[in-house]
């Protein structure tokens, strides 16, 4: 976390802008200092002229006061004379007093000593005037006057010389100001260019990982879940975001994987259900094919039974009633849940009909545990099994035994149909149980529903494989239906209901 903070985007941006600001500030300070320096030099260019003018004016004042004092001998004038003299002596100190090769400075030296001599004569004149030494003060004044002229001329010449030099200096300084301006502009331009490059490169380095991140996000949004977020080790928040996004994508991927597995399982279940429904449909269709109109048929049969009764033919009446029951059951129960009791009644009717048809050759016995008569089970299950046993087991020989037994071992209810017919081959039995046996040709005499249909429906209904077992015996065959004793949930009934 500390490391992150050390390199955070905030810090980076602050760094960039601070560097630019400081550099620009320094450049400006430097330029300002330079300009200021030069301008103050320009200001001083004519200082020597000013100084000389000052000197000249002061000298003139001395000479004026001297003249006035000599003419009036006023003490006020004398006082101001001494003031001016004092000033002048102070100003003189700035002049060069050494012997040097420079002409200008040498002139300063001459002016300095000339001034001294001048002041000596001037003082001498004043003292002589006080002492009333007329000839002496006149003489001294004359000399001082001459020296005054020389001094003024000398100062004038110096002034001219220095003015020429200063004018030259002034133009040079102006030139240097120009140089400073140009170099300042150049420096500023360089700094601007460098700062721009610096800011661009820094901001790009900050935004580059962001752009990559955005690209990756866009690709993921387009559906490519296999893309990883690029991790650039900049040490800032973007790296953290990229890492977090990668973790997120990882977990999304695993979730998707899980969901897919779930969906596959679910679709398999749905497929199973669909198969069951199609089986039912098939069975129904078979019946519709077999019995063009069961209602019409069994109404007609009822009418036939009543006719037989009126004519006193009891057996015919019985027969026709059984026929009617059989078909009514078919019409009512196909696709609906039935009970074991109803199924057994249907078998009774069926055996009766067969025995009438085949003159009592089938000896039918049942051993039923009556506690289970109300067990709910799919309809039209037992009849096809009995029909199969009669068709394949008994019909070939002369008559036969058929034993139907219902018994239970607590968890499972077993309904067994045993015949003593010609039996069945083991392989065929296995094929039938696997639902893979191809029945050759339609059975003309069938009630319509095949064994494979029965097996399929049982398996779908109870959602288990072990529901139908064919056991070849020494003499004949035993078919056993194994169903759970518990009732199935009502919801399932409705689902299956067509």
């Amino acid at each position, binding site marked *: 976390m500390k490391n992150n903070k050390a390199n955070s985007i905030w810090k980076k941006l602050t760094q960039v802008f601070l560097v630019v600001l400081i550099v620009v500030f320094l450049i400006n300070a430097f330029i300002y200092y330079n300009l200021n320096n030069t301008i103050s030099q320009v200001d001083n260019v004519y200082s020597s002229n000013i100084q000389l003018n000052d000197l000249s004016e002061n000298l003139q004042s001395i000479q004026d006061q001297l003249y006035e004092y000599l003419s009036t001998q006023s003490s006020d004038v004398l006082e101001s004379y001494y003031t001016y003299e004092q000033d002048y002596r102070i100003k003189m100190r700035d002049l060069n007093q050494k012997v*040097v090769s420079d002409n200008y*400075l040498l002139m300063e030296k001459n002016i300095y000593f000339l001034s001294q001599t001048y002041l000596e004569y001037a003082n001498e004149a004043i003292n002589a005037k006080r002492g009333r030494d007329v000839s002496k003060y006149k003489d001294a004044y004359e000399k001082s006057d001459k020296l005054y002229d020389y001094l003024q001329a000398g100062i004038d*010449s110096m002034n001219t010389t220095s003015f020429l030099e200063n004018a030259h200096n002034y133009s040079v300084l102006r030139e240097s100001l120009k140089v400073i301006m140009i170099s*300042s502009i150049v*420096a500023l331009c360089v700094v601007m260019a*460098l700062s721009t490059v610096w800011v661009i490169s820094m901001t790009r380095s900050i935004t580059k990982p962001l752009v990559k991140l955005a690209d990756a996000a866009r690709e993921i949004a387009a559906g490519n879940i296999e893309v990883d977020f690029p991790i650039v080790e900049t040490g800032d928040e973007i790296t953290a975001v990229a890492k977090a996004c990668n973790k997120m994508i990882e977990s999304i991927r695993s979730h998707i994987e899980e969901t897919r597995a779930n969906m596959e399982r679910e679709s398999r279940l749905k497929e199973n259900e669909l198969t069951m429904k199609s089986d039912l449909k098939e069975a129904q269709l078979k019946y519709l094919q077999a019995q063009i109109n069961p209602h019409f048929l069994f109404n007609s049969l009822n009418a036939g039974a009543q006719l037989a009764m009126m004519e006193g033919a009891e057996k015919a009446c019985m027969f026709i009633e059984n026929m009617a029951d059989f078909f009514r059951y078919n019409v009512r129960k196909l696709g609906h849940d039935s009970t074991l009791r109803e199924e057994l009644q249907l078998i009774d009717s069926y055996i009766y009909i067969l025995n009438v048809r085949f003159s009592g050759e089938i000896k039918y016995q049942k051993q039923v545990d009556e506690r289970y008569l109300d067990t709910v089970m799919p309809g039209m299950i037992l009849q096809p099994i009995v029909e199969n046993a009669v068709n394949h087991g008994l019909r070939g020989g002369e008559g036969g035994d058929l034993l139907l037994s219902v018994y239970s071992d607590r968890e499972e209810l077993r309904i067994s149909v045993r015949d003593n017919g010609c039996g069945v081959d083991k392989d065929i039995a296995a094929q039938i149980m696997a639902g893979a046996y191809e029945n050759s040709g339609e059975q003309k005499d069938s009630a319509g529903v095949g064994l494979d249909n029965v097996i399929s429906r049982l398996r779908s209904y109870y959602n288990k494989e072990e529901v139908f077992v064919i056991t070849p015996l020494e003499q004949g065959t035993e078919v056993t239906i194994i169903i759970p004793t518990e009732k199935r949930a009502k919801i399932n009934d409705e689902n299956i209901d067509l």
Partner: protein
Amino acid sequence: MQMKRFYILVAAVILIVGVLVGSYIAQDRLVKKTDTSGSKEETYTYHVAMLVNDRRDVFWQSVYQYAKEAGRNQDIYVEDFGARMGEKYSREELLEMAIAAEVDGIIIEANNSPEMVALIDEATAKDITVITVSSDATGSKRQSFVSVNDYALGEMYGNQVAALKGSATGKVTVLLAADGGNTGPDVIFSGINKAIEASGEKFQLNSLMAGETGEFESEEKIRQLLRDGDTRPDVLVCLSAVDTISAYQCVVDYNLVGKVKIVGSYDTPRILEGVEKGIIQSTIVVSAQEMGNKAIQGMSDYLTKEYTSEYMSVESKLITRENVTDYLKEQEEQGEK
């Protein structure tokens, strides 16, 4: 990546600093140009003022330069006093100024006027060493006098004039520079006279004063003299460089080459050119270098030892068409040194 960025940063900083330092140096150099007071000024112990009649004269300019050169070795700075004054002052006024300016020494082309003498005495009274050059202020208290021997110089001119035999009438005019109270020209003239007499040749010797009334006067006088056939001399003796050049130009202008012979003074390139061409017969060169050197030597001696010889003589040299080439070579060699 990090290193690369670091290098770029360093390069940028160097670039900025380079631009700034460059501009600063450029500006500084410009400003330094204005600062002449600090340029190569040498300090000396003694300050000597040099005062001559005509500081623009080539001869005196040379003397000043040589004296300045010689002074440098003796810790003496020689100032061409008054050269930088706006107004034009007389030698006496300048002398007065120099005394008031309390210089250490004065080298002056003096004259015998009482004013000059009085000022020189005033200067020596104020402990200022005064050395007269070329012409003396006789009777003053000057410390030394540096000059050619005027009489010997006159003889030299005389001999040259005498050597120019075969002139029809033998009229000789000597151009004398008017210099109030100065005895120099007179001595030279008498020297010439003496030498001609001694040669036994017949010459009619005249003198002409020039420069009495103002500047450019001598040039006018020469033209006047040469234009007029009656006064035109056969030999013209010029005692200054300016006169020699004027005479040379006049002779050429009036087509008098061969008719008027010139005996000149000094060795400016123009004069030497005249000698080479034979228009100027001969020129007598007073060594400016020797004069400058000797004046400074005397000055230095007196300033340091309070003693110097009262008179120092300067050699003079004759240049004719025969030796002018050698002389030029010699000069060139000296110039190279």
